[in-house]
């Protein structure tokens, strides 16, 4: 047990973090609200390893031979599916939660790499549309800023049923971030602590949702794909119902997925790890004969090319990144250490996105803070990061003998722990044993 001096024994149950939280609760009388995703350690992609080729498998030349990365999303019903150059998309993050320049940078970075960005709660801004070649328009329970004119400008629609950080919970945007423009976009009074609804206002179950999908397709003349995003919980059933409701693409967001503002207790205690959700989703699709016909996008804690490759090997068609993209833009960068300290935080720990005082100018609506953020540089950094993780994923895929990232398969993976083996449904390293399956 960590102690300040020998002989002092800290309680494992009531450790210093717990004591601090009790004190904070006793002082304020309100739950802790923060951004970022789950910070607790859960089984994750680090608990998986690839089996590179050797005698029994034939690798591809790592620096020369083709390993394709393109993906087509939404070819089930839409006349115009999305053709992306890389299988890494940018997750939905709202204008309001993020600054305008930060949204611009996401668009620039995604454009440079031939991938898509996604709006968020609060609607589509002209700047966002202008800077994103391929833009997915989120259709959320709040319907803030929901506008048929914007719907027709979108390249795809994402019906949000849940989010990994808070499945079953609605959104929040605290009063500090409700500027005149954000208030006008959301038809809300300035300065209120705005709470987005947790469920859609005009349908109540999967049968209704099927009709809602039909309406959205009719409004957009069946041109663009319809995604459905779920927070990872009962993923097997949710995916089956989403397919039945007519989704072209399903986005499964694990509990490590980020948020702009949610109760800490929600972030850490609701939902399941991304690792556990993927096999459920793939099983559901396979049983319906829809794997690879309805595309699966996985998000929640994707950090590097290995994570991308592991998702693909487990059966995803693409991944989506949010927190990692913000870090690439400069969130939590050491450059802002002094500013983070003034806020009572530190570089690498900052998660109070809801306060709107982000020193990096990313999760803020403060004009001065925003001015410190360069969207062109941010876009370059994001493009560099995306390029890097795709190169990493290709490196692994070639080592496994795959000429396309989509050719990675569960057979390429083993797990380092019994828990990860059970969740990912791949053998424990060095064995043939998958917990729950007979040998």
């Amino acid at each position, binding site marked *: 047990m960590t102690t300040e001096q020998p002989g002092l024994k800290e309680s494992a149950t009531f450790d210093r973090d717990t004591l601090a939280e009790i004190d904070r609760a006793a002082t304020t009388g309100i739950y802790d609200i923060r951004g970022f995703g789950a910070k607790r350690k859960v089984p994750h992609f680090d608990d998986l390893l690839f089996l590179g080729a050797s005698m029994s498998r034939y690798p591809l030349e790592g620096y020369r031979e083709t390993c394709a990365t393109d993906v087509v999303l939404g070819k089930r019903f839409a006349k115009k599916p999305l053709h992306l150059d890389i299988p890494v998309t940018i997750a939905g993050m709202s204008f309001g939660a993020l600054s305008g320049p930060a949204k611009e940078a996401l668009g620039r970075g995604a454009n440079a790499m031939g991938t898509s960005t996604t709006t968020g709660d609060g609607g589509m801004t002209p700047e966002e549309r202008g800077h994103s070649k391929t833009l997915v328009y989120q259709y959320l329970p709040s319907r803030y800023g929901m506008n048929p004119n914007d719907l027709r400008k979108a390249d795809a629609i994402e019906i949000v049923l849940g989010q990994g950080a808070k499945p079953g919970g609605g959104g929040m945007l605290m009063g500090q971030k409700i500027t005149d423009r954000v208030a006008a976009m959301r*038809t809300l009074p300035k300065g209120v602590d705005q709470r987005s609804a947790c469920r859609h206002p005009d349908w109540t179950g999967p049968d209704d949702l099927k009709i809602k999908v039909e309406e959205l397709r009719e409004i957009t003349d069946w041109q663009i794909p319809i995604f459905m995003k779920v927070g990872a919980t009962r993923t097997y059933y949710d995916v089956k119902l989403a397919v039945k409701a007519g989704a072209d693409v399903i986005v499964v967001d694990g509990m490590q997925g980020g948020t702009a503002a949610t109760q800490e207790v929600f972030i850490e205690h609701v939902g399941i790890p991304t690792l556990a959700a993927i096999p459920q989703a793939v099983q559901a699709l396979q049983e319906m004969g829809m794997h690879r016909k309805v595309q699966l996008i996985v998000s929640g804690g994707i950090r590097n090319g290995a994570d991308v490759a592991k998702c693909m090997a487990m059966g995803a068609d693409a991944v989506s990144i949010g927190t990692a993209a913000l870090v690439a833009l400069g969130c939590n960068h050491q450059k802002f250490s002094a500013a983070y300290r003034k806020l009572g935080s530190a570089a690498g720990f900052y998660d109070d996105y809801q306060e709107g005082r982000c020193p990096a100018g990313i999760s803020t609506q403060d004009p001065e803070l925003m001015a410190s953020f360069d969207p062109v540089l941010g876009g370059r950094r994001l493009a560099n990061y995306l390029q890097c993780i795709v190169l990493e994923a290709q490196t692994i895929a070639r080592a496994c003998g795959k000429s396309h990232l989509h050719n990675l398969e569960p057979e390429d993976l083993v797990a380092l722990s019994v828990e990860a083996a059970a969740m990912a449904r791949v053998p424990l390293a060095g064995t043939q044993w998958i917990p729950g399956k007979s040998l």
Partner: protein
Amino acid sequence: MNCFDLNQQSVRELNQALHNLAKATPETAAEKFEVLNARGAHALACGINSSVDVVIKDHVGYYCAGMHQCGNVTVEGNAGVGVAENMMSGVVRVQGNASQAAGATAHGGLLVVEGDAAARCGISLKGADIVVKGNVGHMSCFMAQAGTLVVCGDAGDNLGDSLYEAHIYVQGEVKSLGTACVEKPMRSEHLEALEVLLHRADSDANPLGFKRYGTDRSLYNFHIDNAQL
């Protein structure tokens, strides 16, 4: 007059024909459509974006006139869930009753329900006007942000729950008010606004017979104490 018989043509063909009007010039866009044999079909006349007049001579299913803009849609029957959901402008008229979530999240325009509207009428309303000549069900105007709901009959439980800045006028009984919804004084400007709205809906109800409800703003911000040691 364009006549669409849904025994002969599909909903897709109808909606595409209506959407094509938006690409016409303003002079040529104004047209009249009559729709026969709808028989409760869903997503009828949704996504209209022109000054067309559409008369549906039957009952309709879910989301009729969804995301409506500019034109007029009249349903000569009952309407299913979410009629005129997210309407932006124009007029939608239901001559019968409307199911749940009528006018949900509507930003602008006018929705008139000649009969009753079921639960959650005007849920998350964002600026449109809704006039219901009969009764409305429970949780109507839940989280309504802006716009007006006029109920000439009675309102069910939890009217205006978690209300933002929408205005509610009820002529009959209110079974119960939701959290943060309170009765407010009816001043002259409210009477004038109500009279205009009733007139637009072709209602001869007397504004003096209505009560006004709105938010007490008690949910606008979290209450944070400062009981520091």
